[in-house]
C-alpha cells in the first residue's frame, strides 16, 4: 500500500502540471478542463465534510452550488448593466470583484445551509436524503420562475469578474485562482479533521449516543459541519459561474447533487483527496469518453458499480488501504 500522503501530493502535483504543460504547448482548452475539474473538486470537498466525516448524505448540495452561482450572477448582472440592486434597506451597485462575490457566496450559502440543516437534521437516513433533495428542488424551481434573473435561460456575464492584480481572462491565471481556493479548502479540511471539533464530529457519525453521554450534542456538531460544507460548495458555485460566465437553474439541479456524491464515492468517502481524485476521473471520463459517444454515462455507471462492489474505499482506498491505516 502506498502512503496516502504521497498519493495526495502526487495528485496535487499532477493537477498543477497538466495545465502548465498545456500552457507550454498552447492548448487553452485543456486548462479550462483542468479548471473545471478543480472547481468540481472544490464543491465535492465541501460535500465530503458533511458526507464523509459527518455521515450526512446530502442529496441537495446543488442548492449551495447554485446559491454561490447566483450570488455571482446577480452581483455581476447589476454591475454590467449599471442597474443598482435595491435591497430595501440599502441600494447596491453590484460588483465585478471576485473577493466580494466570494464573500457574498460564502455567507449566503452558509446561511442557507444553516436553515436547511436545522430542519433536515431532525431526520436521518433516507429521510435526510429526501428532505435535502426537496430543498434543492425548491431552489431549482424558484430559479426557473425568477424572470428578473433570466428564469430558465439564466444570466450571461459578458466579462469574467476581476481579481486584484490578475487578468482573470487568461485561462492559466483563473486556473491559479481556483487551484489556490482548492488547496486552501483542503488545508482547512485537514485541520478540521484533526481538531477537537473533528474528533467529536467523527464520533458523532459513528456513535451519536456515545457523544451524548460524554456531554456533547451530536446534532449541533453535525449542523456546524453542514454549514461549513455548504459554504465551501457555495464558493465552488461562484467560481463555476465565473468559469462559464453563465448561471442557470441547472446549477441547482439534482443531477449536480448526484454527481457530487458520485465524485466522492469514486475517489473515497471521508478521504481528504477523495473528491479531488473523483473529480479528475470524472472530468477525464467526460472528456475522453464523451468525445467518443454521448452515452459515456454508461461507462461511468459501470465504473461506479465496480467501485461500490469491489473497492468500497474508492480509488484512494484501493491505493492506500482502509482509512486510518497509513
Amino acid at each position, binding site marked *: 500500500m502506498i502512503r496516502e500522503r504521497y498519493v495526495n501530493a502526487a495528485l496535487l502535483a499532477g493537477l498543477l502540471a497538466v495545465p502548465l504543460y498545456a500552457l507550454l504547448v498552447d492548448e487553452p482548452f485543456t486548462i479550462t478542463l483542468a479548471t473545471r475539474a478543480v472547481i468540481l473538486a472544490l464543491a465535492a470537498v465541501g460535500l465530503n465534510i458533511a458526507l464523509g466525516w459527518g455521515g450526512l448524505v446530502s442529496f441537495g448540495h446543488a442548492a449551495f452550488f447554485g446559491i454561490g452561482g447566483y450570488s455571482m450572477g446577480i452581483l455581476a448582472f447589476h454591475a454590467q448593466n449599471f442597474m443598482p440592486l435595491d435591497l430595501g434597506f440599502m441600494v447596491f451597485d453590484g460588483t465585478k470583484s471576485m473577493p466580494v462575490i466570494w464573500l457574498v457566496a460564502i455567507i449566503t450559502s452558509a446561511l442557507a445551509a444553516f436553515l436547511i440543516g436545522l430542519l433536515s437534521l431532525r431526520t436521518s437516513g433516507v429521510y435526510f436524503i429526501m428532505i435535502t433533495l426537496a430543498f434543492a428542488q425548491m431552489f431549482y424551481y424558484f430559479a426557473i420562475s425568477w424572470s428578473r434573473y433570466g428564469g430558465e435561460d439564466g444570466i450571461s456575464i459578458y466579462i469574467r469578474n476581476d481579481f486584484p492584480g490578475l487578468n482573470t481572462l487568461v485561462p492559466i491565471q483563473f486556473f491559479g485562482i481556483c487551484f489556490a481556493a482548492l488547496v486552501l479548502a483542503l488545508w482547512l479540511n485537514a485541520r478540521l479533521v484533526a*481538531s*477537537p*471539533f473533528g474528533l467529536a464530529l*467523527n464520533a458523532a457519525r459513528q456513535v451519536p*449516543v*456515545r457523544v451524548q453521554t*460524554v*456531554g456533547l*450534542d451530536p446534532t449541533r456538531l453535525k449542523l456546524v459541519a453542514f454549514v461549513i460544507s455548504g459554504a465551501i460548495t457555495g464558493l465552488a458555485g461562484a467560481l463555476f459561474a465565473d468559469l462559464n460566465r453563465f448561471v442557470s437553474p441547472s446549477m441547482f439541479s439534482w443531477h449536480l447533487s448526484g454527481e457530487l456524491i458520485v465524485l466522492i464515492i469514486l475517489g473515497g468517502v471521508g478521504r481528504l483527496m477523495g473528491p479531488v481524485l473523483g473529480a479528475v476521473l470524472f472530468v477525464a471520463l467526460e472528456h475522453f469518453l464523451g468525445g467518443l459517444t454521448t452515452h459515456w454515462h454508461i461507462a461511468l455507471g459501470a465504473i461506479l458499480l465496480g467501485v461500490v462492489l469491489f473497492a468500497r474505499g474508492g480509488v484512494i482506498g484501493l491505493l492506500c488501504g482502509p482509512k486510518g491505516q497509513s
Partner: protein
Amino acid sequence: MTDTVLETRGITKSFGSLCASDGISIDLQAGEIHAVIGPNGAGKSTLIHQICGGLRPDAGQVLLQGQDVTALPTAARARKGLGRTFQISALAMEDSVLENVMLGALGASGRPWRFFVPVMGDRTLRDRATAALERVGLQDALHSRTAALSHGQRRQLEVAVALTLDPRAFVMDEPMAGLGAEGSKTLTGFLDGLRDQAPILLVEHDMDAVFALADRISVLVYGRIIATGTVDEIRRDPAVREAYLGDPA
C-alpha cells in the same frame, strides 16, 4: 439526606399497555455500589434510559445531586456528572483507543468548538485520557483500532471513557456482559475500588459480581422494585427467591 447523589422518585413509564416502570423510587448514596437485578424484561434498561436521559418518564422525577434533571437531555445530564457505560459497547470502532478516550476528555472539557488546533496536541486532554486508560489497564493498546480490540478490552475501554468524565455518579449497564470468569474477576476488583471515587448504580446479571460488590441490592420485577436491602437481606427475602433467584423458599 445530604449524600444522596442520584435518585428517582416514583418514575413511571408505559409502552401501550405494558408498564415498564411502575413508580420506581431508587437512590444512590455516596460511596456505595447499588445493584439493580431482575429477570429479563423486568424493565432494567427502561429504568437506565430514564435515568440517563434517553427516555422521558410519564410521571416522576430524576434527581442528580438534589437537582431535578427529568427534563434535561442526555448530554446535559452527562455534563452534570452522570457517567454511563453501555451494555453493548458504544464506541467509535473506526477510531483508535486513544481517540475514544480523548472524546470523553473533550466532552468533560466542554470545549469542542475549536477548529484549527490539533486535538492530539492538547496536553490537558491527552493526560486525562491516558490516565483513564492506565487505570483500566489499556495503556499498551493506545494506538490500536477499537474494532481490533477483544471483547474484554472493549468493556475496559467503555469504563475508561466514563472515567475521563470524572463523574459524580456512574450508571453501568451490565459491564460484565460477555466477559469470561477471569475478565469478570478483574473488572469486579476494579469496580470495588471505584466506589470511593463515585457511587455506582450497577445493573448486572452476573450474580457473583453483584454479591461481591453491592452494598445494597434492589430487585426489579415487572417494572416494580419488590425489595431493596443488603446482600444478606436480599438472599434471605422469600419474595425475591421466588421471583428471581428461582429456588422455592
